[in-house]
């Protein structure tokens, strides 16, 4: 126990002070992306790790969030913070829709439903030019800024400032998941995964909790999308690329689904790793490696890195 708290404290201290000692702005960029992916991975983990249902359409929630805030802040010129709110509410509604549509659908059927949903959303983003500008995308998304009365406006345009915003988001996502899981709600979600029939027989409403997990998961993914939009300041149908979903899945499965540290570790690992590989290889090799890694993880470390390490440490 003592060793873990020290490790945790060191990690937090390092994370909190990163902009001070990470000289290279590109490395800071990588950390920011890692943070955005950590929120994404935590959101997918809520569904996959706890209720046991796999959503292969999570990039759709990410993309809807990005577009929501981009459209509101560019076309309607509303405050980006309202955009961020919409980035959570709209995907949340979509998640509610999926959950309600899914009803009794589980396993492969649920996966197919999410793939189809994502497919339709992606096609709409490309074809509905009037709304989304189609393949041209929406440039000029404003940066976020904190404007408190009486104080000068604090722009979150710089990498350092945005890094802290993302860090806050990651911590918030982590705490949210932690509090949910450690309560009666978390137990109901896990019951869905472990034995839904038994859960129903003791009064747990499977549909209600699946919808709940879908809404929260989608809203979190949307928040990540909103952050992405205000960071890169440009949104195009590329946010719906299947590669994002694949990356999320790898992060959760390899990191350790059903744990909280796992997806975060997975996010950092699989954001930093490609940067290391980038010098050596192209992204096609990287994705190929991901596929192989996913298979290898399922064969040799089926529970993921974090649970396997924890198990080994406990055995000693």
């Amino acid at each position, binding site marked *: 126990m003592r060793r873990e708290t020290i490790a945790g404290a060191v990690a937090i201290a390092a994370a909190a002070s990163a902009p001070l000692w990470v000289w290279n702005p590109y490395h800071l960029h990588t950390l920011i992306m890692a943070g955005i992916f950590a929120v994404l991975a935590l959101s997918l983990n809520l569904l996959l790790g706890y209720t046991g249902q796999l959503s292969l359409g999570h990039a759709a929630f990410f993309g809807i969030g990005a577009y929501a805030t981009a459209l509101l802040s560019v076309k309607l010129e509303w405050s980006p913070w309202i955009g961020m709110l919409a980035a959570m509410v709209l995907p949340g509604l979509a998640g509610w829709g999926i959950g309600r549509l899914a009803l009794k659908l589980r396993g492969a059927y649920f996966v197919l439903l999410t*793939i*189809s949903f994502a497919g339709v959303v992606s*096609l709409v983003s490309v074809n509905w030019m009037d709304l989304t500008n189609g393949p041209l995308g929406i440039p000029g998304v404003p940066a976020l800024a904190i404007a408190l009365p009486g104080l000068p406006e604090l722009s979150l345009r710089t990498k350092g400032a945005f890094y802290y915003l993302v860090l806050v988001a990651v911590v918030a996502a982590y705490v949210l998941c932690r509090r949910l899981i450690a309560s009666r709600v978390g137990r109901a979600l896990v019951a869905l995964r472990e034995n839904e029939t038994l859960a129903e027989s003791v009064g747990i409403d499977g549909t209600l909790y699946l919808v709940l997990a879908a809404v929260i998961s989608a809203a979190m993914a949307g928040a990540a999308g909103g952050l992405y939009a205000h960071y890169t300041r440009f949104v195009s149908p590329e946010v719906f690329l299947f590669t994002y979903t*694949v990356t999320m*899945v790898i992060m959760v499965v390899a990191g350790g689904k059903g744990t909280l540290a796992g997806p975060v570790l997975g996010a950092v690992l699989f954001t930093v790793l490609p940067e290391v590989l980038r010098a050596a290889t192209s992204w*096609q090799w990287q994705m190929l490696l991901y*596929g192989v890694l996913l298979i290898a993880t*399922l064969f040799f470390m089926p529970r993921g890195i974090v649970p396997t390490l924890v198990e080994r440490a406990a055995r000693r």
Partner: protein
Amino acid sequence: MDQLLQHLLNGLLLGSTYSLLGIGLTLVFGLMNVVNFAHGEFYTLGAYAVFAALALSAVNFFLAIPLAIVAGALIGALFERVLLHPLRGASIDTTMLVMIGLWIALQNGELLAWGGVAKSVPTPFSTTPLAWGPVSVSTLRIFVFVVSVLLIVGAHLLLTRTRLGRAMRATFQDRETAALMGVSIERIHTVTFAFGAGMAAAAGALLGPVFLLYPSMGDLAAQKAFSVVILGGLGNFVGAAIGGLLLGVAEELGAGYVSSGYRDAVGFVIIVLMLLVRPSGLFARAERVG
């Protein structure tokens, strides 16, 4: 009216290949309880195999297609032995994820091997379409249709008239009893998966020359295969055959009368509607619960 007939004809011709795709997937799904998300990649393999045979080794077109099918089936058998066989006791979620991993690896492998630039496959058919009264159709598409139908009929005969087919059907209906009767379940699994891969490769080999080849062509094919499987019902051969035709026609009508950009959305919409209304498929009988 003429336009309608043309759309119907196009839909049937195209749909026959969707039937091939769907039959391959539904058998794997129904018999092995494996969600083969890599199905589309065997479609891609079949298409690129034909390309390789023609462009690189100047093999006869009519020989290249069966070669591609055999290649697809063999590679399918290989992956079944290496990946699925060791995971026999694992949950359906694990095998699903493994197939997703295979999907990613294969697709990016194709990307690395062939590059992202679309390729076209030369065919020995003339490009002038034949005209039959109000409709016109290219010789290539007729060829594709004929071969598809032959393959579907052949597959059906294999399943219903041969010992192997009987063993497969027995395993599908009651695995334990089949095993007790001396059926090697492992062999049936390998054969079934190879069969599914071969059908997908056949669809790719046939459609490759009709459209262009690019490494992610399998994604749409896989999605259509899933639509067909859901339309026809899991493990339902005839359902998949009919479902494929239905999807082809629906797509053509959608593209013709609604919008061509949303053509591929038809398959997605079908999946969603079917899952909501009748997940067991159009042709499945109501099943007993519990």
